[in-house]
C-alpha cells in the first residue's frame, strides 16, 4: 500500500535509499547510507578504493540484500526482490570490469537484455506462435535501432570479445539501455580508457542522458569526468558519507581531501 502511495506522489524520487547498512561478517561495508535521486538527474558517487561504492550499486541492483535499511525504486521497495525483478522495475547497470556475454553476437547481447518484457514463454518459443513471431520481430527491430543510434550496427554480428575495449564499454551501456531503465547505474565507465576515449565517453553519457531521458548515477575515479558531468556528488569513505553537494563544494571539502590524500597531522 505504502509503495503505491509513494509512487503516486508527484516527482517521486527515482531512487530513494534510507539508512542502508551492509555488513559482511564483522566488516561494515556501507553504514547508514541515504540518498534521494530526483528524475532526470545526473549525479555521482565517489570515494577512495574500498569505500563501499560498488557495494551500494550491488545493493541497489538487488545483488545483495541489505543488513539494514530500505531501497525504493520509483517508490517501490526492493526488499527481497531478485536482481532480475529489480531490473524490471527500471534499474540497469554496467560493471567496473566489463561483463558482456562474450560468445553471443552483439545483437543477441542487446536482445537478451529485454528478457523481462519478452511477453512470451517456453511454449510460445517452441510453437512459434503468432505472439512469439510478433514479439521477436519487435525485439529484433528495437535492438537494431538501438545499435544504430549507438553507431554499433556494423558490429551487430560480431562477438564482443573481438571488439576494441572502448567499443565494449559502449556496448555494455547500450545493453543496459535495452532494458528501458529509469535509472542507469554506471560503475566506473571510464576505467581503462585513454584520454581521447574519456572525452568521447563524456559526450556519450551526456547524450544518453538527454536522448533516453534517464536518471544517471555513476561511480568514477576520473575527477574530470565527474566535474564535467555531475550536478550532485556524494563522497563516501569506509562506508560513511563524508560529504555531498556540487562538484565545487565536494572538491574543496576538507573531509574529502583528507580521505583522498591522508591527514597531515599524523
Amino acid at each position, binding site marked *: 500500500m505504502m509503495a503505491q502511495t509513494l509512487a503516486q506522489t508527484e516527482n517521486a524520487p527515482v531512487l530513494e535509499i534510507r539508512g542502508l547498512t551492509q555488513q559482511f561478517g564483522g566488516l561494515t561495508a556501507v553504514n547508514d547510507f541515504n540518498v534521494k535521486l530526483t528524475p532526470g538527474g545526473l549525479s555521482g558517487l565517489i570515494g577512495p578504493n574500498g569505500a563501499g561504492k560498488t557495494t551500494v550499486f550491488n545493493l541497489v541492483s538487488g545483488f545483495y540484500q541489505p543488513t539494514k535499511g530500505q531501497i525504493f525504486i520509483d517508490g517501490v521497495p526492493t526488499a527481497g526482490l531478485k536482481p532480475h525483478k529489480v531490473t524490471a522495475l527500471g534499474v540497469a547497470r554496467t560493471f567496473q570490469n566489463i*561483463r*558482456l*556475454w562474450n*560468445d553471443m553476437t552483439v545483437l543477441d547481447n542487446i536482445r537478451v537484455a529485454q*528478457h523481462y518484457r*519478452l511477453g512470451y514463454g517456453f511454449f510460445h518459443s517452441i510453437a512459434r506462435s503468432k505472439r512469439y513471431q510478433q514479439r521477436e520481430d519487435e525485439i529484433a527491430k528495437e535492438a537494431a535501432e538501438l545499435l544504430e543510434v549507438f553507431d554499433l550496427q556494423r558490429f551487430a554480428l560480431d562477438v564482443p570479445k573481438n571488439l576494441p575495449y572502448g567499443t565494449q564499454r559502449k556496448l555494455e551501456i547500450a545493453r543496459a539501455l535495452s532494458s528501458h531503465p529509469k535509472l542507469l547505474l554506471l560503475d566506473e565507465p571510464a576505467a581503462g580508457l585513454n584520454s581521447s576515449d574519456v572525452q568521447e565517453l563524456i559526450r556519450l553519457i551526456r547524450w544518453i542522458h538527454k536522448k533516453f531521458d534517464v536518471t544517471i548515477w555513476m561511480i568514477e575515479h576520473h575527477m574530470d569526468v565527474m566535474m564535467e558531468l555531475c550536478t550532485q556528488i556524494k563522497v563516501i569513505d569506509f562506508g560513511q558519507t563524508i560529504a555531498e553537494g556540487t562538484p565545487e563544494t565536494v572538491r574543496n571539502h576538507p573531509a574529502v581531501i583528507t580521505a583522498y590524500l591522508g591527514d597531515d597531522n599524523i
Partner: protein
Amino acid sequence: MVFMLRRYSIHLILALAGGAIVYSADQEYLGLYTLSVLMFMGVNVILSTSLNLVNGYMGEFSCGHAGFMAVGAYVSSLLGVWLFAKDRVFGVPLLDPGYALYAFPVLILIGGVAAALAGLLVAVPSYKTRGDYLAIITIAANYIIISAIENIGAIGGSRGFMGMKRLVNSMEDVVDLPWMPIWVIIFTILSVWVIRRYVSSTFGKGVSAICQDEVAAEIMSVNTNKIKTVTFMLSSGIAGIAGGLFAYILGYVNPGSFNILKSTEVLVMVYLGGMGSLSGSILSAILFTILLELLRPLQIIKWIVIPLLLIILMQFRPEGIMGNRELGDLFPRLKKLYRFK
C-alpha cells in the same frame, strides 16, 4: 521455387531418408541387426542433443543423464504394459491392446514428463550450486533413481522388467508397418526440432547468457532460476523420451543399463560432437553408434579403446568435431540451401 526448396529442403531430406528406412524395413531389405543399430542411432541423437542443452549451451556439467532416461523408460514401459499387455505383474490389460498404436506416442510423452519432473532433482539445487558441485549432485541424482528402481521388487528390481514386445506386436497387428523405426524417427526429429527452437529464441538465449556470465544475465533481467528450471526439465524430459524408445526397442529394461557408464557414453558423444553445437551432437551420436558396433568384436576391450579415443580427442581437438559451431557456420554456402527452424 528456389525459395520453397530452400525452405523445405531439410523437411524433404528427412522425409526421404525416413521414408527410405521405413520402406526398406517394411520390405525387409534391412536386417533386424541393421535396423536396431539405426534405431539406437536415433536414441543416441536424442540423448546427446538433450545433454548438450545442459552441458554445452548452459555450461553446467551434468553426468547423470542416464538416470532421467531410466525414469522415462520405466514410466512408459510400466504404463504401457499395465494398460495394453497381459503381464505377470499387472495381469490382464486394462484396455484393448488394439489402442496401443494410438496411445504409444502419449505413453512416450508421459515418460518424458515424468523424467522432466525427475529433472527437478537437479534443477532446484542448481539455483545455488554451480560447476563441480552441481556435477556431484547430478551423479547423486543418477544413483538415487537407479537405486530406487532396484529396490522396488514389484517391477522386477534389479532383474528388470519386460513385456514391452507384446505392445510392439499389438501395434503391428493393427497396422502392419515397422512401427518402432517410425516412432524413433518421429521422436528424434521432434526432439532436435524442439531444442533448436528453444535455443534460437530470445527466451532460450538466456541459457547461453547464463553460461557466459550468470551475474550479468540476472542483472540484465534474465530470470536465471526459471531458465535453469526450464532447461534442466527440458533436457531430462527429452532424455526420458529417449529412454522410453530405448525400452520399447529392446523390449526389456533393467536398472543396470542406466548407470553411470551409460551417462558417460552420452557425455562422450556430446564432447566428441562439440559443446553447444546441435549438428555436432547429431553427427557424433551417429559416428559413435557406428564406432560402438565396429568395436563390438573387441568385447570388453572396447571400453579401453573408447576412453583412449576420448583422451586423444581431448589432447588434439578439445573443442570436438564442430566446436561450438553449427554446420551452417562451418560451410556458409550450405546456409543458402536450407532453413531449419
